[in-house]
């Protein structure tokens, strides 16, 4: 029989919690684009020593990039916030629409959202707290505040939300979140319809058109 205690190390520190006191993507230029985090072990292997070791290596690499002043997006012009899971089937094709215009996703709600410390000795309570407290399972005001705080903390110029057809409970309220976050921060937001797994839900030209219009409005070439 599986027992939670067998899998949980006494104390787990993820990439984000290890880096929270010294978040490198607050720097200009950002050494890391959120898309780079999506190909790491965000969800799988959580709580394993291998995962912790892996993220230590990553953190060292990122620190090195900061030291050398290496940007994730060369000539970083815009700092963006990403909301929701990635569009896995078009990961780089989609994100390059932004990076080729000098936009870097310096922060996102998803990759760091899985970072929770589990208290030793009470695995079930810890798990319950982790999964009920996670942003995915929280209501509208929490998610609005989370995005507003991240936008201010990371000095973000715009935000992009992925309305994911395979996760309607999370995506359903995004239009309202977008409206409230724009109202509170004055920072523009774009909602893109796609899917985390099904490439048929990704309409290339429609997405490209919206991203281009959004980036042109940020550039404000008037």
């Amino acid at each position, binding site marked *: 029989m599986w027992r939670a205690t067998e899998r949980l190390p006494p104390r787990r520190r993820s990439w984000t919690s290890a880096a929270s006191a010294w978040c490198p993507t607050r720097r200009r230029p950002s050494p890391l684009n959120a898309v780079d985090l999506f190909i790491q072990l965000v969800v799988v292997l959580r709580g394993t020593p291998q995962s912790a070791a892996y993220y230590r290596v990553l953190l060292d690499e990122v620190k090195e990039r900061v030291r050398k002043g290496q940007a994730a997006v060369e000539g970083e012009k815009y700092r963006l916030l990403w909301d929701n899971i990635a569009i896995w089937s078009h990961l780089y094709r989609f994100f390059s629409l932004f990076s080729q215009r000098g936009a870097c996703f310096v922060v996102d709600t998803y990759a760091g959202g899985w970072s929770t410390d589990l208290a030793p000795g009470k695995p079930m309570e810890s798990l319950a707290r982790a999964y009920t407290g996670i942003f995915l399972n929280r209501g509208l005001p929490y998610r609005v505040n989370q995005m507003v705080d991240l936008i201010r903390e990371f000095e973000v110029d715009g935000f992009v939300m992925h309305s994911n057809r395979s996760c309607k409970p999370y995506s359903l309220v995004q239009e309202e979140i977008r409206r409230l976050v724009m109202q509170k921060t004055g920072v523009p937001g774009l909602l893109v319809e796609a899917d985390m797994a099904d490439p048929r839900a990704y309409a290339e030209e429609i997405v490209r058109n919206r991203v281009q219009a959004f980036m*042109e409005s940020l550039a404000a070439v008037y």
Partner: protein
Amino acid sequence: MRSYFVGVDIGSLTTKAVLIDEQRLIIGQSFSRSGFAGKEVALRLVGGLLAKAGLEPGQVSATVSTGYGRITYPAEREMSEISCQARAIAHLFPGARTVIDIGGQDSKVIKILQNGRVLDFAMNDKCAAGTGRFLEVMAQALEVRVEDLGRLSGEARESCPISSTCTVFAESEVISHIARGAKKSDIVAGACEAVAARVITMAGRVGIEPDLIFTGGVAHNAGVVKALSKKAGLPVTVPPEPEVTAALGAALFAAAM
């Protein structure tokens, strides 16, 4: 020698071209069906505009292209229709704050500032309901010309309810209204209201503020203009040539390069 600027809008259904001078005055404008080769249609339109104005291609200082075929055209720069539409409307109507554009396969709502800066926008996703194509399908089912829809809706005594969620199912609804002996004009009025309802729902995402300007080929349809105005609770202004405004915006961007 004077400089001239060209804006080209290769849309899903029609291609438009506008020629302006240094003073941003329109020298010529034209449009034609895009068909299979939008780029060739655009080149022909621009050639025609230059010939009519007695100009050589070398006198055009810059061209900006927009619309779905924008990347195919040999222009100095390509820009989204959202930016171009906003630029043109701010130029024509400094008091404009919201633009509703209904084209062949797209409908858009754009919130703008006086300088033409885009504050927010919404577009239809993966669905032709609330677009010019929707009205074309309805016109076909009713065996009337799409140009006559506006006049016919003006003759309606009442409007037949047509849902605004799907073009294919809406056509079935039109057919069932025909089968029940409803008047053509009443069905047309229902179709116009369905388009307006769809677009106004989308406009709710960005909010509508006056002045409200209506562009795109569908703005020629008086039935949709009336229905939009009623649902928005605001007067609606339609530019004299509502289908060429994005091309005009492209030309204005070309002049600013």
